[in-house]
């Protein structure tokens, strides 16, 4: 603690580096989690529509429903009658409803089942299986769109995770460099300790403690900045863009912040231990 006070400039610089690096990591983690949630939201909206042959009996409908439900990977099945389908279409056309007015009396739309898959990757095989069921005329699932979306979200996730990994490495590098430099600036001190007969552990301990304290303070600072910033962002966005749903689960945010502090402590401890090592060789 004394040494932190006496080397105040270096200590402040180390704390600053730790917090700046971890702020970057923290912000990006939250961006990444939100992007992930967003793409999941998109994906879970994907659905398969099994259009049925005209005029089926109740038993047939039940049989088809059961067949679909028993396909592995199917998470949701719902029957949509031709009337429901018309309503839905009206809604989706919104301002061009007038087109459909002529259809009111004689509904050309077929009955159908709405099916959802557990994961977007399963949509294509499920669609194939449904097509084979008797009584199903056609399966619609926006083939090209699903494929694009699945590919795109997978890319976003991989690229995001990759970027996050690189950022974490960068943070570790920056922090450990700073700690190394701060140890380097005091290499004389370490040499003298060793010459006075200090055991390695005795020399290492204060630096370890210092590294941990610096790491802790720096990561705490960054945790506070990221946490406060994110919560205020969530509030603002709630008013400005009520339809965008950010992750507001306090637990997730807390986990991220906790992770940041933990990482800070760990890097501080490991960084200082590693940096002293080379000055400890006798």
């Amino acid at each position, binding site marked *: 603690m004394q040494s932190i006070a006496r080397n105040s400039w270096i200590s402040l610089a180390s704390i600053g580096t730790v917090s700046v690096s971890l702020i970057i990591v923290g912000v990006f983690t939250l961006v990444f989690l939100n992007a992930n949630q967003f793409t999941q939201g998109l994906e879970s909206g994907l659905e398969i529509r099994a259009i049925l042959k005209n005029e089926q009996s109740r038993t047939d409908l039940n049989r088809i429903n059961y067949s679909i439900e028993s396909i592995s990977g199917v998470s949701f099945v719902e029957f949509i009658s031709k009337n429901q389908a018309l309503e839905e279409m009206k809604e989706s056309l919104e301002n061009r409803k007038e087109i459909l007015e002529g259809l009111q009396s004689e509904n050309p739309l077929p009955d159908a089942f709405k099916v959802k898959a557990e994961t977007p990757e399963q949509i294509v095989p499920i669609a194939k299986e449904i097509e084979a069921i008797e009584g199903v005329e056609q399966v619609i699932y926006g083939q090209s769109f699903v494929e694009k979306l699945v590919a795109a979200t997978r890319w976003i996730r991989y690229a995001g995770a990759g970027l996050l990994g690189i950022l974490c490495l960068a943070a570790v590098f920056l922090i450990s460099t700073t700690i190394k430099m701060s140890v380097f600036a005091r290499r004389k001190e370490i040499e*003298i300790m060793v010459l006075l007969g200090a055991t390695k552990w005795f020399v290492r301990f204060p630096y370890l403690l210092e590294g941990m304290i610096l790491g802790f303070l720096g990561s705490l600072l960054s945790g506070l900045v990221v946490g406060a910033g994110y919560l205020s962002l969530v509030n603002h966005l709630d008013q400005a863009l009520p339809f965008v749903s950010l992750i507001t689960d306090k637990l997730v945010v807390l986990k991220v912040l906790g992770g940041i502090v933990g990482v800070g402590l760990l890097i501080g401890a490991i960084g200082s231990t590693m940096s002293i090592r080379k000055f400890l060789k006798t």
Partner: protein
Amino acid sequence: MINFYNVTKLYPNGVKALNDVSLSICKGEFVFLVGPSGAGKSTLIKIIFREELPTRGQVLFGGKNVARLRPREVPYLRRKIGMVFQDFRLLSQKTVAENVAFAMEVISASGKDIKKRVPEVLEQVGLKDKLNVLPKELSGGEQQRVCIARALVNSPAVLIADEPTGNLDPDTAWGLMELLEEINKAGTTVIMSTHAREIVDVMKKRVVAISQGKISRDEECGVYCDEL
């Protein structure tokens, strides 16, 4: 207690600082190490202290081969030796008292002992009013005396001083010599490298003269002398 058998020290840059040196120093002796600048005095001292390793030959300290010590035994060797470094090596961030106390903390002395012993030994070297001052606020001679106090504070079995009077005026230097003689009488082995002809000549102790890495003279009750 300390034995050199045919020790040669070759520094990585090719300088042969010690050349086939054999020497034996017994417990309780007082030895002056003299010789021209660059003769190898500090190198000999550094080898005892295991700051440098001998290139050839063996060095025994209390019967143990210094070069063969395991890394975790080294601190315990050093704790037996009080060392006055030629270049002081004070911790610039710590005050005088903290610098001296640090040598005691390192060997896990109790806080009470430290509080009592540190002012005591600083008074012995004449620095009792400089306890809370940083090394850079001291004169050269004062820094040297802090270094001496630090070497004495743990009452080591062997005291090695590398030119401890280089920055001291004759009065202070003589005061220090009295202190060392006292300590030596109490049983501590003292090894001191020096260029102070007057001191060596008056003290009448064993003198080991080194010249170009070789022991050129080893006399009980010797004098500094330069081919006189």
